[in-house]
């Protein structure tokens, strides 16, 4: 059976069960359910399903559960995937010992900053309004931060000075290039303590030293991906936003892929329609808004101030229970804000549900966008240069994903497994209640029908029996 037919069958069963137990179904399965197509994205389908079963609050709970309880496991699994992939690069043909030129006494690896910063994160000051929502652990000085991106921003502000990351890597920024070396480069060497260790030791210890993301980062990133709330404030260029839209398009293609084999290279080039869609998306994000359809086309946005309030709330406590409450309250507020331009009050619940659904649907993109920042790209480019030579590099984020398809796939699978596990739990619980109610109704119907037939056979007039049957339904 085709995927779309199976999806329709499930929605049909739910509509039938809801009609039998509660009356007529309240949602249509046309434009209300964007997942009714032949695409293989389980998450979009499950969010549509939960939306049809229970609606807004259940979706909010699913987001909150994922973002509060599942992130540590997702981070652990992603780190494991990163280490495996780095080990695979190294085992493809180099001596496992650390090359002399990377050791503390060597010349080091020279990397242009632009080649590890595909999404221009290092152009934003961590202490700015936008920077506060992009970086973690913003310390003074920044080089004391436990977040590598914040640390690296600090390194870049101090031309020619070497800073050490967690006694693993020594990093020096050079604004001016000499002897053929371009401007704005980083010289990276293994710290002296790693001179007698292997490349795998450096890789594993470096990945272990990183903090990949937290709840705030992910919500900030997703809201920015949808509405451009941060991008419009920090003045990202249309060109940069188009690049990000291309990355999201590639991730969408990978998520929607239903084939056994990973997507082929054709997925990394774009049709005219896709290019137009990237431009449109970039322009909307540049304006800090998204376009939504609720009968009419309406502009929707979530102001950066809402994200700032949310981040301040989350940083003010270490209690998981309080964090859950803050997240729930702030998501509700942002959902309400996203519906503020809607003309008819009747459309407000739909827009609010769509906001939460978008947060879940964009979780994979949000997490992968955070992974495509310097903290991760740096480790891959170091290994890439060791294996393929000093000139080896990734031209952009798309090139990185293309050359590391297995990594992207395994990260996507790690994230989707967690989200699907939570969404399935909610969906199955609700379906179980619906099916149980349906079963009880069926048993009652059998008993009532038997009673009616007994009365009919006993000579009670059919009009009298029908009246009594109609009153029991």
């Amino acid at each position, binding site marked *: 059976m085709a995927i779309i037919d199976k999806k329709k069958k499930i929605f049909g069963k739910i509509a039938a069960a809801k009609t039998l137990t509660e009356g007529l179904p309240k949602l249509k399965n046309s434009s209300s359910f964007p997942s009714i197509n032949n695409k293989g994205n389980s998450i979009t*389908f499950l969010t549509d399903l939960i939306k049809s079963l229970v609606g807004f609050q259940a979706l909010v709970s699913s987001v909150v559960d994922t973002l509060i309880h599942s992130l540590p496991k997702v981070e652990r699994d992603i780190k494991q995937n990163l280490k495996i992939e780095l080990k695979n690069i190294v085992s493809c043909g180099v001596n496992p010992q650390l090359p002399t030129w990377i050791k503390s006494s060597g010349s080091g690896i020279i990397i242009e900053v632009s080649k590890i910063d595909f999404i221009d994160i290092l152009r934003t000051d961590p202490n700015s309004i936008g920077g506060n929502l992009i970086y973690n652990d913003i310390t003074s000085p920044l080089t004391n931060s436990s977040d590598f991106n914040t640390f690296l921003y600090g390194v870049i502000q101090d031309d020619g000075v070497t800073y050490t990351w967690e006694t693993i890597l020594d990093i020096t920024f050079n604004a001016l290039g000499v002897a053929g070396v371009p401007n704005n480069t980083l010289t990276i060497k293994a710290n002296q303590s790693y001179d007698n260790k292997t490349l795998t030791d450096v890789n594993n210890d470096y990945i272990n030293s990183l903090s990949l993301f937290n709840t705030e980062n992910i919500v900030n990133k997703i809201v920015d991906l949808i509405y451009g709330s941060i991008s419009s404030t920090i003045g990202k260029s249309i060109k940069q936003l188009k690049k990000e839209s291309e990355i999201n398009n590639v991730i969408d293609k990978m998520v929607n892929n239903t084939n056994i084999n990973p997507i082929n290279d054709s997925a990394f080039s774009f049709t005219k329609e896709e290019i137009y869609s990237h431009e449109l998306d970039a322009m909307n994000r540049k304006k800090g808004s998204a376009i939504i359809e609720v009968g009419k086309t309406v502009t929707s946005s979530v102001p950066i101030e809402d994200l700032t309030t949310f981040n301040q709330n989350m940083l003010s406590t270490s209690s998981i229970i309080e964090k859950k409450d803050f997240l729930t309250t702030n998501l509700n507020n942002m959902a309400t804000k996203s519906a503020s331009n809607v003309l008819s009050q009747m459309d407000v619940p739909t827009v609010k549900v769509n906001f939460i659904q978008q947060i879940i649907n964009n979780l994979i993109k949000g997490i992968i966008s955070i992974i495509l920042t310097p903290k991760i790209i740096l480790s891959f480019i170091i290994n890439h240069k060791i294996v393929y030579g000093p000139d080896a590099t990734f031209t952009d984020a798309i090139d990185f994903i293309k050359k590391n398809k297995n990594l992207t796939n395994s990260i996507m699978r790690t994230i989707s497994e967690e989200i699907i596990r939570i969404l399935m739990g909610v969906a199955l619980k609700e379906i179980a209640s619906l099916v149980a109610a349906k079963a009880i109704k069926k048993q009652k119907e059998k008993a009532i029908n038997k009673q009616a037939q007994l009365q009919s056979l006993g000579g009670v007039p059919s009009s009298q029996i029908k009246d009594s049957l109609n009153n029991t339904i």
Partner: protein
Amino acid sequence: MPNPKPIPNSGFNLNSINGVMNTILASFNIPDTPVEPLPPPLIMFGAKLRPGLSADSIAAEIISRQSDAGRVVGDVFADGPNVEEAMEYIRVKAIVDALLTEAKVDVVINPGISVMTVGVGNLGAPVVSQGSTTAIGIGDGIIR
């Protein structure tokens, strides 16, 4: 680099959309209990009182209850008679006509009904006898 694990395309593996949908579809399946039989004597006497199927009565019942489901009753639109109601009659009539003219009930009588017969003895050879059942025969029927 090693090839990634293939994505399963069926069964209940949650890594694929088919696995997710199969799991959900399976959760709708609940075993159905058989309907309880009616007392045979009541059927024997009560069936004789039944008026029989009438398309007119059924259609009238449905049309009169349309408003319960939120549908418009009567000729309220400027474009003429309510075709929905006419369609309802056609639909019911077709179903009732099919039942009355095409349906068949196959009945199986369970073995073991007591029979009292009268006949002349034939020294151990088969006897031609006349008789009647002493209890109501219970059978199961299916409509086809």
